[in-house]
């Protein structure tokens, strides 16, 4: 597999600057074992990664984490990204932001601020975030607009908040957000631990999708609205990350070069670090990145499927964390021999819609304590018992 051809050009660098975060969201997309990872990269190494990424063809930079604002060198990274003409998007909880720092980052060339919002009431939002965060986020979102920085709100959807989708849209309109991502939880990592409490029913999802579509039409040209369906309710899998190691390159806080934020939870793959080799060499040669490029790895029904060049077999992490085999067809595909796993989860969600909320399983919050005791495979078969203390 040659990665030198245009087929494998990264357009977006996802820079996970740290796994540290003030929030404890029950669907955090960091790996469950995040606390077991090594020391974070220093400023010089990150600056080198930005330069190498741009030379490889990267034009978009997502500064994310964890919480990227916890890094004191964010200013230096944004300044270098501006020099490299990268489109720089800060993906933040908002919590550590100050108005002065946002103004400084804007002056240095920051292009967009994306703030995660858990819900539109303080009580329900803070329940998901695991701490008081809602009011603070609201203030930060207002600063972003006052500073005339483009604002994206990312609201993660699940059973507890999907019925409030119209309130969410009204909330985004009041804040004059430029872009609203209504992104359903994807059930990997911490979210897979909480799937029984969070997965919506088909009926609930359909209602929300229709309301989002109506709002998208109404607000066309003013606010961009994106509705992301959970993989569990698509007939055919999405092209995860636009294909493995194809359009996105992710660098983890400790320097691993990955195709996505969870690939290092798959067993048996070898990942290389930007501490050891240049990003360009790793992009081309990494055994992990080359493992699922192209079609040679595909089993049936993918191998002979006409959609194999459109969806690339779906999500490898989902395949592994649901079936135990990272080579398997993504079980969300109706053609997967493991599709019953998805149907069972949907059936449970439909049944749960009949119960009162109090009958829902208690939520497992992201925590360093659980994470330090986890192995990367714990998202599959977790027996962790944890009750929130608030």
């Amino acid at each position, binding site marked *: 597999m040659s990665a030198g051809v*245009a087929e494998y*050009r990264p*357009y*977006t660098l996802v820079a996970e600057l740290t796994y540290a975060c003030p929030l404890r969201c029950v669907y955090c997309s960091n790996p469950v074992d995040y606390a077991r990872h090594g020391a974070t990269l220093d400023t010089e190494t990150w600056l080198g990664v930005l330069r190498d990424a741009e030379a490889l*063809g990267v*034009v*978009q930079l*997502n500064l994310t984490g964890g919480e990227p604002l916890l890094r004191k060198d964010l200013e230096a990274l944004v300044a270098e990204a501006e020099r490299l*003409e990268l*489109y720089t*998007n800060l993906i933040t909880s908002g919590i550590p932001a100050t108005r002065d720092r946002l103004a400084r980052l804007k002056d240095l060339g920051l*292009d*967009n601020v*994306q703030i995660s919002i858990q819900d539109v009431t303080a009580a329900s939002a803070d329940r998901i975030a695991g701490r008081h965060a809602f009011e603070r986020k609201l203030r930060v979102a207002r600063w972003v607009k006052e500073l*005339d*920085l*483009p604002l*994206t709100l990312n609201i993660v959807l699940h059973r507890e908040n999907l019925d409030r989708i119209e309130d969410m849209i009204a909330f985004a309109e009041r804040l004059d957000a*430029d*872009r609203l991502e209504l992104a359903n939880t994807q059930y990997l990592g911490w979210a897979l631990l909480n799937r029984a409490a969070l997965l919506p029913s088909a009926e609930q999802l359909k209602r929300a999708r229709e309301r989002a579509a109506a709002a998208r039409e109404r607000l*066309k*040209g*003013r*606010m*961009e609205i994106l509705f992301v369906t959970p993989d569990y309710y698509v007939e055919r899998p999405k092209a995860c990350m636009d294909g493995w190691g194809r359009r996105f390159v992710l660098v983890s806080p400790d320097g691993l070069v990955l195709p996505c934020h969870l690939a290092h939870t798959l067993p048996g793959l070898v990942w290389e670090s930007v501490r050891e080799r240049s990003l360009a060499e790793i992009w081309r040669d990494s055994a992990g990145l080359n493992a699922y490029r192209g079609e040679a790895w595909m089993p049936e029904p993918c191998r002979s499927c006409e959609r194999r060049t459109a969806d690339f077999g779906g999500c490898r992490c989902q395949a592994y964390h649901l079936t135990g085999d990272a080579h398997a067809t993504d079980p969300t595909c109706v053609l997967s021999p493991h599709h019953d796993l998805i149907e069972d989860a949907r059936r449970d969600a439909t049944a749960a819609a009949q119960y009162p909320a109090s009958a829902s399983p208690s939520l497992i919050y992201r925590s360093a304590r659980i994470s330090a005791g986890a192995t990367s495979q714990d998202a599959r078969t977790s027996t962790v018992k944890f009750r929130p203390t608030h």
Partner: protein
Amino acid sequence: MTPDARPRLAPKVRLRHDAKTDRYLLLYPEKGMQLNPTAAAIVQLCTGERTVADIVAALAEQYTSQPREVVEREVYSFLTALNDRALLRTEP
């Protein structure tokens, strides 16, 4: 999109040259759009000072091989598409 509208790129949009393909890219949150030379020429004229009519006139002068009405249709359809995606601001 009216002839006297004065479009400029929305603040969330960045235009850059791509050395790998020698094309211009429009970049905005989580997405990018590769522009063909005509589209790039149109975007470069979206400064907030020129009207859509000015942009049509400038393009028609540059692409003399095309009938003016074809140029006009292309400008309107492209700018409308950008506007629908909230990638433009149009001064009144």
